[in-house]
């Protein structure tokens, strides 16, 4: 469902051209729990931005659900991000002025959905991540682990093809991080949700069914 072929990305920093991704090939199947692991500076984040359609590769092919998506226009990319990709960030990235419930509903707002259905759907997801009794709390009133759970509910709300998690446990202590990883594993096992976790932590990577090792701008394994 997700096929990357020879993805290259280079940045121009001053007079020199820096190649960050040097031909990445990757295939992710429906229902996979995959981790992309590598040391910092190996191009993980850039790859994540490309897979998340926040950035366009310099060259290469990126097929998502059988459609070439890498080079479409900005509005179309926004739409694909909205419908097909669920983001989970290291810093949770909840909007501080909104309640947990409103944060979860945000992707649906940009889809133009409204009404009681939306609220029901969001409550259902908050329940799924064990946060239903905190629905009306704002992020500042929640612990890191709780915020990350809300963020996961937000990623799930639009029924995306893939959940893209960038160091999802990076800001959490080991125990809470473990709980978050358990949540991902459960979602993957019970509901067949495709999850791609980007991490530098071998302990996290080991919990995934498959590990892609990144080194120096390419995937070596």
């Amino acid at each position, binding site marked *: 469902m997700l096929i990357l072929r020879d993805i290259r990305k280079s940045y121009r920093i001053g007079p020199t051209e820096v190649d960050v991704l040097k031909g990445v090939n990757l295939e992710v199947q429906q229902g996979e729990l995959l981790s992309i692991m590598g040391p910092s500076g190996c191009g993980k984040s850039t790859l994540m931005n490309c897979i998340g359609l926040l*950035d366009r590769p310099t060259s290469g092919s990126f097929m998502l659900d059988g459609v070439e998506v890498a080079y479409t226009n900005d509005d179309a990319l*926004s739409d694909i*991000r*909205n419908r097909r990709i669920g983001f989970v960030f290291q810093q949770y*990235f909840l909007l501080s002025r909104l309640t947990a419930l409103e944060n979860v509903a945000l*992707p649906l707002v*940009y889809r*133009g959905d*409204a009404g009681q259905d939306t609220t029901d759907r969001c409550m259902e997801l908050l329940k799924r991540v064990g946060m239903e009794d905190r629905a009306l709390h704002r992020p500042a009133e929640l612990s890191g682990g709780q915020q990350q759970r809300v963020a996961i509910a937000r990623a799930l709300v*639009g029924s995306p093809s893939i959940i893209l998690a960038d160091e999802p446990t990076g800001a959490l202590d080991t125990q809470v991080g473990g709980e978050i990883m358990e949540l991902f594993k459960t979602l993957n096992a019970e509901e067949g949700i495709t999850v791609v976790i980007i991490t530098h932590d071998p302990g996290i990577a080991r919990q995934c069914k498959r590990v892609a090792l990144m080194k120096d701008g390419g995937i070596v394994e």
Partner: protein
Amino acid sequence: MILTSNLKEATRSLLASKQRTILALIGIVIGIGSVIAMVSVGRIVQDEALRQFKEMGTDILTIEKEFGGGLPDGGGGRPAAKSALKLDTIRAIASRCPAISNVAPSVRGTGEASFNGKKLERSGPMGVTASFLAINKLSIREGRFLSDLDEQSRFCVIGSQVAAELQKKGADRVVGSKIRIGDNLFTVIGVTSEVPQGGMRRFEPNEMIYLHITTSLRVFANAEISSITARVSPGYTNTAARDQVLAYFVSLGMGSAVRITSPEEIIAQMEKQMQMFTLLLGAIGSISLIVGGVGVMNVMLVSVTERRREIGIRRALGAKRGDIRGQFLIESVILSLIGGLVGIIFGVGASWLIAHFAQWQFTLSLGAILLGVGVSNAVGIFFGYYPARQASLLDPIVALKSD
């Protein structure tokens, strides 16, 4: 849904930074307030002037001698005809033109007036007929006005201000006092009632010394009838009356010697001038509006900078550039509209105060209010567009990385 959630978001974000919001609001309030006050005062002055003008009645025509215009003096060597409007000619207007019920010719005199050897400031002699009083809607406070039996007499009627000056200069009784104009002495036989200043008469009634027109024509050198006020008979339009008067003068071979003005023309001309005046005031007010608008832009730019990460998050979750732009645009429009509403209240209040102290009749101008709402909306869009566009063009990755 996006709209309602944007509205909600905008209000929240404005409330979240109250101090900044209030500062931007003050700018807009002053801007809109001054535009409204200026335009509204302009309207009030315009209405006031028209009201004073109409107080004299709109059923009057002004007939003036056309200066430099061709009285039939036969420029090409023919013997010059008598180049003045004659009193008999004028008196005949009312009988020859059924559309004219009454005429009041007048002569402006020259010469210094004095009482008991003391000069009377701010006074001027004017020769009139008995019909003058009624046509100019003046009334007598004391004594009587000049009558047609006073031809060639040495009587005069004075305005209230001249009367006051006489008393100041030691006259026990105003009526009966003698005023010297040039080499002639005139006995005061009446005083006209005080008339509010700034009316649309072409003279200042309170400062006049009225003589009989026949006396003035004799006493003053080079005196000639320069202006006639004619009242239109009921049932006739001003245009019909004007045509009749013109036909009358044409029949005398003096068609090009007079200029006849109807109140409509003067009103139209006045309105045009007043509109320019209002426009000018509005333009002055707009300067502060621009300053207010720049304030809004500043606040919005700061808001965009502060919320870069939020923008990045929203973009990652699927917000299109247009969504982001809309969000910030709505915020600046709300800011400007609130400022505009408060500004309208201030502006109307200020114009009420000005009207109150200037003793003008206050009128609430709906146009000014609509202008205020429209302009504040436009300010919000115009000065909010650039920051909103900046926000929408942020690269999501860069925006997410910022703190």
